């Protein structure tokens, strides 16, 4: 029989109920700035869609939304949870297969089939998450790599309606906006759909990041023994982390398959995984804004560097990964934050997230 008042006064309960103001940044969001940003985001595609370079930029922005969702959710596992899972792209592909195959084979409208994508990815994550939870470090790396290889095998040599004889999913029904409104306006519509998904994912991850759940993830990462002794159930939280992360990744996969109209199994080659990892590491591992910054940088830079430097692109990416690991292990975002704090000398600038 534990005394109730003693329980409610104990530290653990207080943290769970009332957060420090710095831990809940949404409480001090400037509504004017927020509305302004949303208006810009809503108006931008119409400007970009009016000229051909702009339409290409619009395509890049849509890709940024897709990979932004994936990197943010992978960052939840890698950076916030500290679990070295390399199965993220596999979840992405599973989402794409679920939605694409349903739309193609069963004739379901893409708007409905896309909801199969996060469900399928979450189920896959729970299946692979269960054995991973007993393991750590290098064992998790291997298990998830093995899972990704299994999925790749399935996607290249599996049943015909998935593998397409090694070419993957082809001629998947698109959302069909371009058929209704023409190419330019259609792309604006894709942009809006992508933006909505991106915003939902970002908002949910943002709330999780600063919530007691996010705190528990970080506690488990930093000291599993201590976190467990303070009442954080590692099993439940890690499974939740896997499921959450796969949910949004699968959604992004479903969106991309109906945007491209195809999904080649080559995206399961290691290069995409490395690319996404580079985005997270470059931007800032375990920070909230890091993956978004990294995704924006690594989506834009390769296009800017196109031409004579194209062959050196990968070399530069490898070098920057190695350099970041040695000289700025926290990534670019914390670095920029420090600089801006020094420049503008604001002591009450957003407190460094506990990451």
């Amino acid at each position: 029989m534990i005394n109730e008042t003693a329980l409610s006064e104990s530290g653990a309960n207080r943290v769970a109920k009332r957060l420090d103001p710095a831990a809940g940044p949404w409480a001090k969001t400037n509504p004017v700035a927020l509305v302004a940003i949303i208006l810009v985001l809503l108006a931008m595609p119409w400007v970009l869609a009016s000229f051909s370079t702009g339409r290409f930029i619009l395509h890049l922005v849509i890709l940024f939304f897709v990979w932004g969702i994936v990197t943010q959710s992978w960052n939840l596992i890698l950076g916030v949870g500290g679990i070295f899972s390399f199965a993220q792209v596999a979840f992405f592909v599973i989402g794409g297969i679920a939605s694409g195959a349903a739309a193609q084979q069963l004739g379901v409208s893409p708007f409905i089939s896309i909801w199969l994508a996060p469900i399928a990815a979450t189920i896959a994550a729970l299946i692979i998450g269960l054995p991973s939870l007993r393991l750590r470090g290098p064992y998790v790396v291997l298990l998830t790599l093995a899972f990704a290889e299994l999925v790749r095998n399935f996607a290249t040599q599996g049943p015909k309606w998935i593998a397409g004889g090694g070419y993957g999913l082809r001629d998947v029904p698109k959302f069909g906006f371009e058929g209704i409104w023409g190419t330019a306006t259609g792309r604006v519509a894709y942009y809006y759909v992508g933006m909505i998904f991106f915003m939902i994912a970002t908002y949910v991850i943002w709330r999780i990041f600063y919530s007691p759940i996010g705190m528990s993830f970080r506690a488990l990462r930093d000291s599993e023994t201590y976190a467990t002794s303070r009442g954080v159930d590692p099993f439940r939280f890690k499974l939740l982390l896997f499921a959450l992360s796969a949910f949004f990744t699968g959604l992004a996969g479903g969106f991309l398959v109906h945007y491209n109209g195809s999904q080649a199994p080559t995206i399961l080659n290691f290069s995409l995984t490395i690319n996404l990892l580079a985005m997270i590491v470059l931007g800032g591992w375990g920070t909230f804004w890091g993956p978004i910054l990294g995704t924006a940088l690594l989506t834009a830079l390769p296009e800017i560097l196109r031409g004579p430097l194209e062959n050196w692109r990968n070399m530069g990416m490898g070098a920057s990964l190695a350099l970041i690991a040695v000289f700025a292990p926290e990534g670019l975002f914390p670095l920029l934050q420090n600089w801006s704090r020094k420049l503008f000398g604001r002591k009450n600038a957003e407190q460094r997230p506990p990451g």
Partner: protein
Amino acid sequence: MEKLFQAVYSGILYGSIYGLMAIGLTLIWGSLRMLNMAHGALYVVGGFVAWTALKLWGFPPLLALALGVVAGALIGLLIQVLLINRLIGRPSFFNAAMIATVGAAIMIESATLLIYGPRVKQMPPLISGQFKFTGVVIQYQGLVIIAISAVSLILLSLFLKKTRYGLAIQAVSQQLDAARLMGIPTVLTFMMVMTLSGALAGLGGGLLSSVFYIAPTAGYTPMVKALVVTIFGGLGSIKGTIWAAYIIGLLEAFLQVYLGPSYALPGLFLFMILMLVIRPRGLFGLGEMQRL
């Protein structure tokens, strides 16, 4: 009967190659507690250097192979000196080292791509020719690979057991702090381990590129298989790794012969996942003490 012999022969061949690749990984894990994701890239370096020496410069096969080994060792040492040595002692060593080696792997891969182009290359065998034994075609090259890797594995374990340097490596893997207190220069030992493992990966690349092919990304599959082997045998355990290499090799060959090649890899990975669930530390695994 024919099938059985075929499976046993290919299994031993695969096992020898996996052994070469995996020992390097396990040595690094044992002493440094890091996952070297550039191991596959070192394999590619060994393969390409041996190919260049043999095909373009016209060196004799054994010398070409030796050059590949040296190149692998040098690049391994370079990674250690330039990247890993700077990370030692950081709280997030495992993460940082893994990312640094991934970066190194991408750099090496794109460098070989820039030099050699994306087309696959194949090395001529060291000794060509073949004979038939109970209906199984056995190439001399396969026997050479089995022999060379067996000899190198034996030499390596002698080195680890009998020489000062080998004992230093073992001491560092068992108890880093104690080894340091006994006056073992740990950083030098780490460098030695990395050189050794680079040399073994280079040897693997040189030998294997005559059986398979060599291309800038050819190192990924051998590396993943080597990872499977190391983890199956238990990270850090030399004995376990050698056992695991042959077990995994035989398993893969049997799956290939009796079920068909497309079942080999999924079967192997399913087996791996089950193994990790049942026995999370492999056959002879060391503990998972946090170190460095």
